Structures are given as C-alpha cells and as structure tokens.
C-alpha cells in the first residue's frame, strides 16, 4: 500500500522535561491517504501532529515528509506543502484581523502575486459567501470560523493537511458540514490527511486507516473496516470502542 508514502515517522520520541509524551512511535501515511490518530487526553496524539508541523522542535527520531528528511526547524517551502487546522475555532483566528487579513497573510509571507483571486477562490471553496470577507472572528459562528481556518490552510495549496480535532468544538450539525467539506476537498485536490480525534465515529468516517494511541505509544493500527466490524485486537482499543457507544446500565 505504501508504495509512495507522503509521511514516514520512525521511532519518534518526544519529552517535555521529565514526562515522556511520545515513545518510539512509527507509522507511515501513503500519498492521498487519510490517516487517523485516536486516543484520550495525554495519549500524545496532538504532540505528534505538532512535531509533524514543525511547531514542536524538541524531538528525536526520523520524520520524512514528501521524500525529504525533516530538520527540527523547517524552511519556508515546507509550509507551502504542509498546513494544519486547529481544534479550537475560537482560538485559532486572530481576534483583531478580518477574514480578509487572515487569508491575505500567508500569501504576503510567500510573496504570491494573485492574492485577490486566491482569496476569493479559497472562500468559495470552503463555502463562505463573499459578504463575510471583511468580518472579524467575533462576527462569525464556530462553524464559519472553522471554514476560515480551513481556507487559510488551503490558500497556500498544500499537499498535506494536518487536522487536530477539527470538529470537536462544533455542534454536531456543523460538524457534519465541516466533515463533508473536508472530504470533498480531499477528493478534489488529492490531499493527504492526518486527522487526530478522540471520536472513533468521526475517524472511521473520515479515514481509511487509524492508529490508536495510549500513554504516548501506538497501541494498535487498523483499518476503518476493522473498527466498523468491532474487531480490534487489543483490549484498550476494544475498551475505547465500547465506551464510545454510550452509557450502559448494568441492570437494564
């Protein structure tokens, strides 16, 4: 399957002071694949994403992205290939910048000429009407903010999108819209996704394969079909699966 991997992680280790948050983690993601990382808080799943994005510079091991080994400090070109969408749509947009400012910034940084056309296209692609262009974040709903965040990630036309719980702060009806949008964009642009989430149903819906993490280790890698068939091998993955199905009254 991994004839042409977009991302290879080998023996990744991350420590913050005394706590060892990611331990000997290895996995690879094929080009055009959507890969899920599932775990509870403290499992290290978000840290993995921050290492891949170059936001976290203290790590050991090998990270290869699009065929080149990644240094701790990434160059400008890297960011045109890899972008990220954050969990909290209320924290990921600059409160004093309009949608227009936010989308223009990456284009200005990379000196891209046709900013006007690109901004308009990005807004159209994520389904934001033009009338939103000069709004401030506080004039937008959570779902609209997340669309802006996705547009910001897409405006540089990356090949890999890292998604850190992109819908966990949203209402379910908005979640459905954002997930549909992400699915459509992936198909259209042949993007590679890594989706981090605590929600098994979301990961199963979005990804072909997923990795279950616990206490910084990869516990089990499986396909979405295995998950849907309720047949993970490890006890922890089983436990997560059962817990995600809601409350069970013993006496019932």
């Amino acid at each position, binding site marked *: 399957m991994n004839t042409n991997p977009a991302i290879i992680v080998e023996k990744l280790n991350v420590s913050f002071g005394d706590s060892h948050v990611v331990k000997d983690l290895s996995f690879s993601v094929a080009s055009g694949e959507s890969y899920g990382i599932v775990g509870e808080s403290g499992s290290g799943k978000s840290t993995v994403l921050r290492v891949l994005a170059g936001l976290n510079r203290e790590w050991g091991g090998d990270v290869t992205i699009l065929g080149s080994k990644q240094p701790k400090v990434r160059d400008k070109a890297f960011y045109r290939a890899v972008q990220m969408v954050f969990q909290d749509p209320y924290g990921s947009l600059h409160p004093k910048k309009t949608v227009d400012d936010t989308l223009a910034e*990456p284009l200005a940084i990379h000196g891209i000429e046709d900013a006007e056309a690109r901004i308009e296209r990005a807004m159209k692609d994520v389904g934001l009407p033009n009338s939103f262009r000069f709004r401030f974040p506080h004039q937008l709903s959570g779902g609209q903010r997340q669309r802006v965040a996705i547009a910001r990630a897409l405006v540089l036309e990356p090949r890999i999108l890292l998604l850190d719980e992109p819908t966990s702060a949203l209402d379910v009806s908005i979640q459905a819209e954002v997930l549909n949008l992400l699915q459509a964009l992936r198909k259209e642009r042949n993007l590679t996704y890594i989706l981090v989430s605590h929600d098994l149903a979301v990961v199963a819906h979005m990804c072909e394969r997923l990795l279950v993490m616990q206490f910084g280790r990869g516990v089990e890698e499986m396909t979405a079909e295995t998950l849907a068939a309720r047949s993970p091998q490890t006890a922890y993955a089983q436990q997560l699966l059962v817990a995600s199905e809601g409350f069970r009254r013993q006496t019932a």
Partner: protein
Amino acid sequence: MTEQTSSGWTAWLITDSPVSRRQARLGQYYRQWLAFRRNPAAVIGLTIVVLLLLAAAFAPLLAPYDPLAQALDKRLLPPSAINWFGTDSLGRDIFSRVVYGSRVTLVIVLLVVITVGPIGLLIGAAAGYLGGWVDRVLMRITDVFLAFPRLVLALAFVAALGPGLENAVIAIAFTAWPPYARVARAETLIIRNQDYISAVRLQGASQWRIVLRHVVPMCLPSLIVRSTLDMAGIILTAAGLGFLGLGAQPPIPEWGAMISAGREQIFDQWWVATFPGLAICVVALGFNLLGDGLRDVMDAR
C-alpha cells in the same frame, strides 16, 4: 436573535457584512463607541480630556490676558469678575496662566507617551516572544529601572541633564517605560501560545513579522489603557518636578511651578496655589476615568 431597527449611517456601520476593510474597521470602532457611551464615568473623563485639548488649542482665544504680562500694581488680587482666578505675586492673571498651562501639560504628556509607549511595547513584546537570553537581558534592564521610585530617578536625570521642560520630559520618559515593557511581556507570554500565533508560524512568517504584525496588535489595547491611566501619574510627576523647580522654568506657566510659586501665600492668598492645583486634579481625574472606560471597552475580547 436581536430585534432592532436602524437606518442610514448606523446601519452602514453596524452591518454584519461590511464590503471593505475600511467599513469593517469603522464598524468595529463604532461598536466600541456604543459600549463606551454606556459608561457615564468614562464619558465624563472623555469630556474633561476633550476640554483640555480645546483649552490648549484655543488658549489665545480663551485667555483674557497675556499669561506672561506682569502688572505689579495688581499683585495678589482675589478672584473677581476681572481676574476670574485672581492674580499672582507678579500681578499675572491666574486664569490665563492655567489656560496656557494646559499646553505645557499636554506637550509633556504627549511627548512622554509617544516615546514610552512604542519603546515599552517593543521591548516587552520582543522579550516575551523571543524568550531565552533576549528575555533575560531585557527584563533585567527593566528591573533596574523599576527598582527606583519614579520621581527620585527623574530627579537624578534632571540633576544630570539640567533643569528645563525638555529634560523633564526625557527624565519622565526614561522612568516611565519599564511598567509598559512588563505589561507587554506578560501579555505576549499568553499570546505566543495561542493557536492563531501557531497558525502564522505555520505559514512560515519570520519572528519579527509575528511580533510586529500579530503580537503587538493584541498588546496594544492594554497598553493604551495603561498609558491613559498613567497620564495622571505623568502629569503629577511633571508637576512635582515643576514644583521642585526642576521642570519648566519661569516664566513658563506650568501648573506645578505655579503651585510652587503660590505656596508662600497659601494661607493669605489661597487662590494662587489652589487653581492650578484644581486643574491638575481635574485633568488627572479625567484621564483616570477615561482609562477605566477604555479598559472596559478595549480589553473585553
């Protein structure tokens, strides 16, 4: 679900769908103004500050006499219809001197704020964002300045530079920036870990671009509020220096120096020291009220 009716300019300003950057910004300012207007104390503060500005701008029209014109036959006259605030020991009209004094006060305040704000902001934001040794060096320098009481340090500077209005401004500016750097650094430490800063880092922005274009705008409101609240202190320090004879030199009508000149007659001719004192009180209060009001509006995120 809000229910309201509005038309014309108001509608243009508070629309949810502005069509240009300018309209979006103006709309935001208008909303802040609406919130500001709901606070009566803040409006009083703003009124005082506006009156100060007007007094300074139209001093020649407002003042009935030349503030420097001495009339030794009219020394120490009590307040009357001719000399509203009375006259001082050289027979100068105190009302005219208070009005012209607003110019001096404004000049001091503006010069100090113009120099102090950006310096404090840049030092604080750079220290907070870059961290490491940059942070350590900048903050230790800040601590050194913070360790001295402001007036004492200002006195030392003026003593070294020589008395005078310009030197008083320089001295106050030298002593006033450290708290701004502290505030800016504290804000930056919070801001640097926000996702929206991570997002610009992920776009490949340089550190200076992040500090100047993304961190600084977030620190700005609290610094504006702080400097407004600080104006009262600056005015008092300037008046203090003037009182001690180290600020504006005679015959410039500076409020602190005027109080100082009136202190010998405080029991017999109370008006000489009282009116410039009241002017300082009112203006300091005005800036304080304005600062409080601005804090409510601008710091609310």
